[in-house]
């Protein structure tokens, strides 16, 4: 059975508002914005909270734990590096409540299940940043 791999990827650009997020990834730390008024995670990073329109936001370190909200497996690879896959592209719901698009690696394709427990791991980017991806909680099979 084929196991999900890391796709070659376009390097994500960084915007001024998201710089703390990307800076922290250099130390493999996962940050999310937190709205102090709503007491809720905000993702993607913004200048205002989409829940209350307030600007009372701070960066907090996330646990790196999450669950698989949904996914798709690319069977025809569009990977710019020509890697073959399969690649699981996923929406992962962090324990803190934010939902992010990412990859799930190290899982036999047929074992991918909505709701499965995941933990963050990191994919090195050429400029020293890391891209947060996920593997099964407790490590890859």
């Amino acid at each position, binding site marked *: 059975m084929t196991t999900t791999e890391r796709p070659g990827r376009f390097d994500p650009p960084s915007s001024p508002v998201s710089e703390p997020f990307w800076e922290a990834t250099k130390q493999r730390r996962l940050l999310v914005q937190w709205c102090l008024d709503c007491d809720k995670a905000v993702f*993607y990073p913004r200048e205002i909270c989409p829940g209350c329109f307030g600007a009372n936001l701070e960066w907090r370190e996330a646990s790196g734990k999450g669950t698989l909200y949904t996914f*798709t497996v*690319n069977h025809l690879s569009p990977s710019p590096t020509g890697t073959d896959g399969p690649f699981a*592209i996923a*929406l992962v719901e962090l324990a803190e409540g934010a939902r992010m698009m990412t990859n799930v690696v190290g899982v036999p394709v047929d074992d991918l*299940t*909505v709701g499965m427990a995941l933990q963050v791991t990191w994919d090195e980017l050429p400029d020293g940043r890391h891209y947060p991806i996920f593997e099964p909680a407790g490590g890859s099979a």
Partner: protein
Amino acid sequence: MGDVGVRGASAIVGVADDASPTGQLEIGGRALEAAMIEQALSDAGLTIADVDGVCHTGSSMGLAEYLGVHPRFTESTNTGGSSFEVHVEHAAAAIAAGMADVVVSVYASTPRGDRARGGGMGGPGRRPMMMGGPNPQAEWEIPSGIRMPMGAYAMAATRHMAEYGTTPEQLAQIAVSTRQWATMNPKARYQDPITIDDVLASPMQSSPLHLLDCCLVTDGAGAFVMTSAERAKSLPKPPAYVLGVGTCHDHAMISQMPDLATTAGTISGPAAFGMAGIKPSDVDLLMGYDSFTITALLHLEDLGFCKKGEGGPFSEDGKLGPGGSLPMNTNGGGLSYTHPGMYGMFLLVEAVKQLRGECGERQLSDPNIAVAHGSGGVLSCMSTVVLGTEATLS
């Protein structure tokens, strides 16, 4: 908030569309747009001199300048595939308020022809689909390697399957029923019947969606003309009255969609049906945007044709196809007729032609109420238009 007089105050009085079994059209750009407008105006018994409102998803100023029209109603809303339903909504309000008299909307897109001609937007290479304006998608979605737009719909399908037990066979039945309609549309790209097995055996694109779960990429164009109900009565063809309209978008990027198994059609649909004063069981024809099989399935639930989560069982008996109790996408849809990128125009054109009785072999028996439900972006902007014959006005 009640109906401020939009119901039945305006009508679609002229339509035109074009596509080809080859998937390719001979001309493109403004020339094709002008041809569509000319046909739609001629269908309406009107001329360009009557037009005082112009809608275009790119630039209504550019289009109006080309046409030599100086409109007092101008509309450049672009919500992707649902843009044209939004144009109907805005034009209906403007006409009802006396701010426009004759409004035209047009669409032309020729990805295949452009490629054959060696130019345009259809050149080689993969262009990630991007939203306009500041682009969080490049930062937060594209690096995952997602294939857009199909990856977004695939994620919705996975979620729907996990939450409600929807099966690949049930999704495939939607493609099969839609193809049955396409066998009766001589302009359709694909006109040969298919089976559920054919869909499931077609190459997996972005799981769980197979090639035949996905819409086409073809050239296509269309236009519609709207005017007041009063003026419509003096025109040669039976008007398709605008009975209800409603729009809602709840995200731009798929990763920001609140619930991937529920669309903003739960807002736009009841708003439009409420204005029209109809229930789902009153609908004789559903033109439900089918960029993918899952897209159409979500409309069935979110517009209230069946309960949430039951779109799969609802579709699997073939009731969406010829002879069924809820005819859907009688032109063959985006899955089998044509899909040039923003398909919502074709929903409206077919709805009007069916209400007039102009659809030949695939003509329904005396339909009175047709719904055109557009979906734009990645399940982002839902816009619902209820159209009715004169019999529905009272």
